[in-house]
């Protein structure tokens, strides 16, 4: 068995009585772009800070190429990091900021100059060398921060919500840049965000954090198509949950009854929590008809929202649970549809999930 490039083994972090990270286990491949996705307080940032060496775990270990990192202080870990806030040194020019990690490593001047040039080219900020950070926009500052973090060729680059202070348009632009820089440099990136769209757009794999543990790790499509927990199903893509009755289950498939209709062969996830069985449906995977059909859920339209190329139909099932349908604009089933109409909703068993 080969040693994984970066391995997080059973990390736990307690702050007094508060458990910030419960038990995080993770293996990262060299060159991978892995995102920690989760709401605030889910332990994703704490895990990143432990990797950076700003905090020590209460328990567990971090191994880079099979060797523990915990005994090494931050300044010797050789890890790069881009922070949420702007952390360029305000008294230094852009060029001197990028040169800083090289100067403290006492590299010869010609090498530093060449590297600074290379980094400025990488983040497409040639000619900005003599500017002070205060003279640059937030997006430009974060690109310089990226250049500074990559200047010393770190094996791992940590990014802690680096785009959260930027507006949406700029954010997408820099996401693009980050993606390009990742492909160009092949550096291993661990990226923290609470924005699922950002995670899906950037990452090779996503680790979904919830309450101090990783609920599931996988590629975006894997998490979307096969969520392991209700939390992941809610966090990646849109979803509705209907309480249902388990009639039969075998080999990871379930037969359930909802509002009088019976659905069989639905993928089943045993979560071990006693929340009762729930059927998860995605709005874009539902079909809608105006006539009653077999194997369909009866519902009443409560609202119709036009969203550009999509139309969002909010309905309410007979038991009063909300259930949304998203259909392309101009779909025949919704022409003339109005609030209060009765509709019948169907889905393919494989696109739904039962959580028990």
């Amino acid at each position, binding site marked *: 068995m080969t040693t994984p490039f970066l391995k997080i083994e059973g990390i736990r972090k307690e702050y007094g009585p508060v458990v910030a990270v419960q038990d995080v286990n993770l293996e990262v491949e060299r060159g991978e772009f892995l995102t920690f996705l989760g709401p605030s307080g889910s332990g994703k940032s704490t895990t990143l800070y432990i990797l950076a060496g700003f905090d020590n775990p209460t328990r567990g270990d971090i191994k880079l190429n099979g060797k523990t990192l915990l005994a090494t202080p931050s300044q010797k870990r050789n890890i790069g990091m881009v922070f949420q806030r702007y*952390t360029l040194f305000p008294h230094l020019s852009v060029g001197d900021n990028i040169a800083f990690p090289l*100067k403290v490593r006492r590299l010869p001047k010609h090498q530093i100059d060449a590297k600074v040039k290379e980094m400025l080219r990488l983040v497409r900020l040639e000619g900005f060398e003599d500017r002070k950070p205060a003279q640059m926009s937030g997006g430009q500052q974060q690109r310089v921060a990226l250049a500074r973090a990559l200047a010393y060729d770190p094996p791992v680059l940590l990014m802690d919500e680096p785009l959260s202070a930027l507006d949406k348009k700029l954010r997408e632009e820099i996401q693009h840049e980050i993606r390009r820089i990742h492909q160009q440099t092949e550096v291993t990136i661990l990226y923290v965000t609470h924005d699922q769209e950002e995670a899906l757009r950037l990452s090779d794999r996503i680790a979904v954090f919830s309450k101090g543990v990783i609920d599931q790790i996988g590629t975006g499509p894997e998490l979307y198509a096969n969520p392991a927990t209700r939390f992941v199903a809610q966090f990646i893509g849109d979803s509705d949950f209907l309480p249902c009755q388990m009639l039969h289950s075998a080999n990871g498939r379930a037969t359930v009854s909802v509002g009088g209709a019976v659905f069989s062969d639905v993928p089943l996830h045993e979560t071990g929590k006693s929340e009762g069985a729930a059927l998860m449906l995605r709005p874009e995977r539902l079909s809608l008809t105006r006539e009653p059909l077999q194997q369909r859920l009866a519902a009443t339209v409560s609202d119709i929202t036009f969203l550009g190329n999509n139309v969002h139909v909010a309905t309410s099932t007979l038991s009063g649970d909300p259930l949304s349908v998203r259909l392309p604009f101009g779909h025949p089933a919704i022409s003339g549809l109005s609030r209060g109409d009765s509709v019948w909703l169907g889905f393919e068993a494989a696109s739904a999930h039962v959580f028990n």
Partner: protein
Amino acid sequence: MPSFVALPEVATVKRREFRSTLPALLFLALFFVVPVIALLLRSVLEPQPGLQNYVELLGSSTYLKVFFNTFMVSAVVTIVSLTIGFPVAWTLAIMPSRWAAIVFAILLLSMWTNLLARTYAWMVLLQRTGLINKMLMGMGLIDKPLALVNNLTGVTIGMTYIMLPFIILPLYGTIRKIDPAILQAAALCGANRWQALTRVLLPLTVPGMAAGALMVFVMSLGYFVTPALLGGTSNMMLAELIAQFVQSLVNWGMGGAAALVLLVVTLALYAVQLRIVGNESEGGR
């Protein structure tokens, strides 16, 4: 966005602000500027019109020594205050705020204690049979008591103590404004503690240090009580000299001339400070 409340023009606001500062300006003019001008006039009019007071003041080695003492002591007090004040301000800034509040209370309490009382306390501590000399002799570090008072050493010690809060408070403010993430970034960039201090932290605290240092230096130049009590008769400072001209020698001309020299130096330094603070707000975040 249209505003429905009519906002007063900037010029009007400025005029109003000016009007509200008028009483203070009048007060200053009446009780500060007029007497100062009167004193300065006397420096060129007494005993007869001319610059002879200035010629005497700047031409005599006795008086030049007083100027030298004044600048020397002020400079040493400023440097020592900075050296002691920086670690204190830094510790205060990173200390849990509950503890910092206690230290601040002690600092302020000492500032609010009567200056004379504090200076006499230093006399007791520093005199030949005082606590410090007794302790040093008890430890066997010295054979005979050090002359710590009635000379410039005593003045420097006493004034450093009094000036420390004026360094610590602005420095504390500057250090608190530095985002800890900047120092974390420096550490991850590979900077060890010394490099983080000299390449990041110190440069970022320069505005606070400059503000505090100039304040202390300028205050020290004109300080009277501490030099008068802890200093000796042979090594005078400028404020003592002015007091002597006016009170003992009743020579208003020389006193006025010395006061003008002090005022000019102070204003020049104030202009330097304005320039530095101006640059900071221009380039700062």
